[in-house]
């Protein structure tokens, strides 16, 4: 694993894996129930019992951050997986088949890419209602064009290479050419895009939750934790700080991973 020797890649992977593990094993790791209210000790400063303090309902902030990882990361991973599958499909078929299908797929992608994702996401949430499922689907659709475009460009470059020609000459069908011939050779840009998109998806989910359009309360998500904590900024500024640092750190890890992967996997994109 030469990639892991790159400190940027290994360091960001450590942060990502750690936060994933934290999210998955949240009930085992979190010191308290994230929903348990305790009005006697509300807005408590960080202390031995509550490392990051307690919020306006006396809930343990650290536990809420840990459970919040579940919401934020699950939405991000599932939506990016969805975008990756859909986008790769559109890019592969569009790039290889060409014609009107390519036109629809790529122009459709251009339209979506030209607009700010948060705007479209807000409009979609406004009409479809906010639930975690809707949020995941919406973010997935919004990030599909990024993959479609990257894959499309790669397919157009690869499809006339000799190895594909020879596969075609041997009588391979289109699905076989696309999945076994082209796809393995264009995985690098897809992985780079996936890593960068995960960072963006977390930002988008956090932004929507911040606006009250994300995970419905009382379930903790990093965005809505910051949003409610803003109301207590005078008395309890630490409430804002811990989720802020958490989001920035995770997104930083994904961006750094994406950058690192791009520099080492595909020197042409540098």
């Amino acid at each position, binding site marked *: 694993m030469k990639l892991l020797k790159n400190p940027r890649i290994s360091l960001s992977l450590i942060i990502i894996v750690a936060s994933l593990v934290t999210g998955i094993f949240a009930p085992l790791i979190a010191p308290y129930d994230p929903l348990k209210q305790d009005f006697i000790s509300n807005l408590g400063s960080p202390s031995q019992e509550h490392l990051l303090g307690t919020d306006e309902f006396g809930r343990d902030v650290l536990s809420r951050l840990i459970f919040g990882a579940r919401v934020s990361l699950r939405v991000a991973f599932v939506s990016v997986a969805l975008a990756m599958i859909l986008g790769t499909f559109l890019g592969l078929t569009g790039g290889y088949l060409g014609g009107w299908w390519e036109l629809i797929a790529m122009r459709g992608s251009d339209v979506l890419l030209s607009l700010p994702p948060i705007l479209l996401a807000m409009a979609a949430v406004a009409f479809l209602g906010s639930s975690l499922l809707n949020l995941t689907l919406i973010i997935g659709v919004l990030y599909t064009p990024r993959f479609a475009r990257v894959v499309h460009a790669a397919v157009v470059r690869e499809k006339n290479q000799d190895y594909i020609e020879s596969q075609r000459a041997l009588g391979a069908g289109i699905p076989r050419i696309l999945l076994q011939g082209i796809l393995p050779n264009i995985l690098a840009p897809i992985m780079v895009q996936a890593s960068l998109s995960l960072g963006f998806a977390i930002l988008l989910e956090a932004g929507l939750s911040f606006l009250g359009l994300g995970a419905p309360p009382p379930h903790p998500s990093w965005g809505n934790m910051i949003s409610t904590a803003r109301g207590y900024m005078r008395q309890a500024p630490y409430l804002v700080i811990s989720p*802020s640092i958490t989001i920035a750190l995770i997104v930083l890890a994904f961006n750094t991973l994406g950058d690192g992967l791009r520099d080492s996997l595909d020197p042409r994109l540098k």
Partner: protein
Amino acid sequence: MWSYILRRVLQALVFIFLISVLIFSMIHIVPGDPVLTILGDEGASQEKIQALRTALKLDRPLPVQFFDWIGAVVRGDLGESLISGRSITPDILTRLPRTFELIFLAIILSLLVGIPLGILAAVRRNHALDWLISLSAMLGLSTPVFVTGTLLTLLFSLRLQWFPSTGYVSFQEDPLAHLQRLILPSISLATTTSAIVMRMMRSSVLEVISLDYIRTSRAKGLNQAVTLYKHVLRNAVIPVVAIIGVQVSTLIGGTVLIEYIFNWPGLSSMLIKAISQRDYPTVQGVVLFISSLVIFINLLVDLSYGMLDPRVRYT
């Protein structure tokens, strides 16, 4: 060149048309009856339901609804708000300059911060300074605007009390108060773009420096600084200007959160309010307006790119 311009304009129009179809169809993909969703769960009277259905023009066939709506849009009429009953277009036009103001200042700030830092990082490539600048840029890219905004408020409004934390005072009313309230939101908005400008400038300078003519100019003994100013920067800045155009879309997305945090009465806060009030016509109107604006700006950027860089050929 004219055919290129014509084609790009046509393409932009097609985009706007497609978006309007998308926005129009949104109200029809609402699960259940949109009228009942708007009125809420409490048993609304039959007349009320019927009145709203007529107001939303949902009682007519789909194509008629669409062409009525698009026809009005073309004439500049985006419909009426369900809440206030007022026409949406004038409201948008009053708020537009306020949003533009934020974006404009954010662009200026990003250039002022991003370009010098980018040059510095490139010139000191792989030194501690480059490392520090690049890391800060990465941090700027990774921190959500609403986090930056919140933390800046915490520090500069609540702790140091240098700026008022929220609100809006028009320039005519009190220019100083207006500017005081403009600063924090613009800085928050500019963090991401400054980072992007810096990264672009850095890689652009590095690319130009490695080109042959720069080596020639160095070889003939020209002063480093002169080379940098006369030859490198002029060429390196082109992609940066182009990327600012693309960033307008990101900036507009950023204003959604910034206007919310700072209580800035611009376009985006109009949208947020409309969403919370289930004022569907306003949501549609504002989204269509902002989308068209973004596409129009992208078009201008594409066309002006050729003026900045004569090497760009219109094909």
